[in-house]
């Protein structure tokens, strides 16, 4: 898609285990690149300003709001999106737990919450309910009241 301004940069990143080379405008966000250049639309845009968490992806294993990350910041980095969590057709335990516990309603926040939870559980494998609630407080959900999401994360933590 032609752009009216800005010189493009070459970007080397690893997305869901695959090396990708892209030529993109440096002012674009990681979210835009994922959704519109790579077609990874599982990453959602809920607000575009880092307040809702719907666009959460893992950047070198850490959960970030991809709408706040410029492509120039991700050169050489490893990115995991929701599509990368079940690459070989097998669901991640968090994905399975979200299905089984009824933690999915409209599903718009779901990819972001799952990735936040994954990153959180890696650094804190035995959390309390309060810790889980704080950990996902940056991911807004308007459908579930969070109860079943918390339960799903708790279940994986206790496995």
């Amino acid at each position, binding site marked *: 898609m032609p752009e009216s301004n800005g010189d493009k940069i070459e970007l080397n990143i690893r997305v869901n285990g695959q090396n990708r080379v892209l030529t993109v405008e440096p002012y674009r966000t990681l979210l835009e690149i994922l959704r519109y250049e790579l077609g990874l639309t599982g990453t959602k845009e809920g607000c575009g300003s880092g307040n809702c968490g719907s666009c959460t992806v893992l950047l070198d294993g850490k959960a970030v709001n991809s709408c706040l990350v410029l492509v120039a910041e991700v050169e050489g980095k490893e990115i995991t999106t929701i599509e990368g969590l079940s690459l070989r057709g097998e669901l991640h335990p968090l*994905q399975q737990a979200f299905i089984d516990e009824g933690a999915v309603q*409209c599903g718009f926040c779901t*990819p972001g919450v799952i990735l936040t939870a994954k990153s959180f559980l890696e650094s804190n494998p035995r959390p309390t309910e309060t810790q889980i609630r704080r950990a996902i407080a940056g991911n*807004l959900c308007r459908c579930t*009241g969070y109860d079943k999401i918390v339960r799903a994360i708790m279940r994986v933590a206790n496995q």
Partner: protein
Amino acid sequence: MSEYAVIGKSVPRIDALKKVTGEAIYSGDITLPHMLHGKALRSPYPHAVIKRLDVTRARALDGVKAVITAADVPGFKVKSELSCPEAPHLARDKAVYAGQPIAVVAATSLRIAEEAIGLIDVEYEELPPLLDTAEAMKPDAPLIYPDLFTNRFGRGPTGKDNTPGNIAWHVIFERGNLETGFKGADLVLENTYRTQIVHQGYLEPMAAVADVDGDGKITVWTQNQGLFTARGTIADFLEVPLHRIKVMPVEIGGAFGGKTYQLLSPLCVLLSMKTGCPVRMEMTRDEVLAASRPAPGASITVKMGATRQGQITAISLSMFFDEGAFPERPYSMNAALTGIGLYRIPNLKLEVMDVLTNKVPAGSYRAPAAPPAAFAIESQLDLISRSLGIDPLQLRILNVAAEGDLLPNGAPLPRVGFKETLLKMADTLNERGKSGNRGIACGFWRGAAGTFAASLYVNGDGTVTLATGVADVSGSRTGMVQLVAEEMGLPIETVAIATGDSDTAPYADMSTGSRTAYSLGTAVVEACRDAKAQLIGRAAKILEKDEGEIEYSRGVFRVRGNPDKSITLAKVARSSLFSPGEGPVIGRGSVGMPPFAPMIAVHAAEVDVDKETGKIKFLSYVAAQDVGKAINPAIVEGQIQGAVAQGIGWALMEDYIFDKGVMQNTSLLDYRMPTAADVPPVETVLVEVGSPSGPYGIRAVGEPPMVPVLAAVANAIHSATGVRIKELPMTPEVILKALKAQEASSSKG
């Protein structure tokens, strides 16, 4: 053991897998070759004459393919702005709210479209905005529209006024004699309550993609609560016949009433018509908050009389809704019908008005009108229970309306388990023990009904596919699959559901008012029974018996009294495709507005208030509800828990902050919605008093659990602190101020 094989089981949602893997497609995920990007220029003023609108510079920008204004909308010269409801309302001669679209651009990239917006020259002449309902209602108030005539309903003359005004609807219902009622009371209390404008807060911003092909066929991907209603809005706006428009099914990222409008798709279609290219438009979160369709603010005055024994003798309830700049979704009728809850009130006056102002137009939000009304009525009942020393649940039990009692519009009330739900809540709270920090409130929703059709295709291997055109905003696809499996006596794995587009799917009304499971369910059960009847006919022929001799159970047709003589459904289905005869089996179900199945919720909130900071902490929250019959208890619970969280946001934190009619807090940082750290685990208590109408006794679920929350929280705060708050939101600042005022008055006293 449950009496049913599939109904009542918490099977996983059929859409869950695609949603946890990111495969699910929402309207903003659609990308088409040569797609353009649309962006709207919006009015910065709440009320301003557009003296000059010049798009020349924008059109000349490289990459811009089209710029449209109201002048490009078919029929704009002759049609009233009020004649096409729920449309984008491109400003014509004047802008009537800040955020109203003035012009829309399509360009080869979003950044070019945004740049072009800045090149549109508009000369505004600001008019004083009407921002207060009391001002707007005055007979000499300036008119927002020269051709808005008040619709009157109920007592007195019904129909439209002759002179224009800013009141869209004025509804009055009366019963008995108020004066006598208040005379017979030992205690009469009158208070005014206020609720604020709040947004549905769906996480998925509005988005639409439209593609018009060379034949003039219009294809639209847009989130909506009804494919056919979206199609109708686009058709009305563009004066195109329905069969030329195809609305595709997409996943919907939260709706709650807020996606019953097509604010983008008609503009996208118009841009696609002008350019010959597909066009995508998406709202930013700022646009969603400032310029979509939030719930209106309300002012509610209630006067209530009760005897010493706790019998309510009379209620006078008057409500004013701040409808904003378009009378799109009148709240008054809902308010009048649900406002007093499910109580038996012998003497009653309900007066409700929808008043227009120069604010963002109001829209539907989960149980429209009922939460503000319940905030007032249930707060008032709480005050009466405190004054009379009667337990709050007991006070409500004393005044429960029963089957056959008349609703305010004179319609008889069908059976609903209000008393059962109150008693169940009493048991639940008894088990938990006494608490001095608890607040009780109830919420009534009279239900809604719609027109729905369903087709059941019996496949050649004995599996079945249900075709519907329903917009799934609450798990309805899963519930419908469960209904089919139950009705057809088939394992759930052999039932599929296909949501068609508006060309191929059976008709479905919008998924609103908590009517989908109930009304569509009625059509689905009918389709199953129709298919079964056809299959029995075919089986009888194959088995060479009369139809009356054939019985069906779990996929097998048997001859009565001769169980060895049988044929499987799979074989009958196969024979229907490959033998001479009647051909494929298609079950058909159609339902037009079945009777309402009312619903009731009873909530108990328990809070702790930090007296230093005014901050609230929930100790517990119990939500009981008569759900009729829960098709899928986990989905029902999830709906209730979600509604409580939304209610907590409304009660404690969410608000529209305006400066001269312009919303100031248009980000999710400043428009603060509850996070996981703000809401408690919500314990649900499902009561199942079957509805007399509808299959399996099901009622609806979605709206009622929103209704009691505002008052339940206010009543709990009163219990915890002795402070009564009558205006929302009850932020820490508000609570702290109230606590200080209480301290000051008690130290004086």
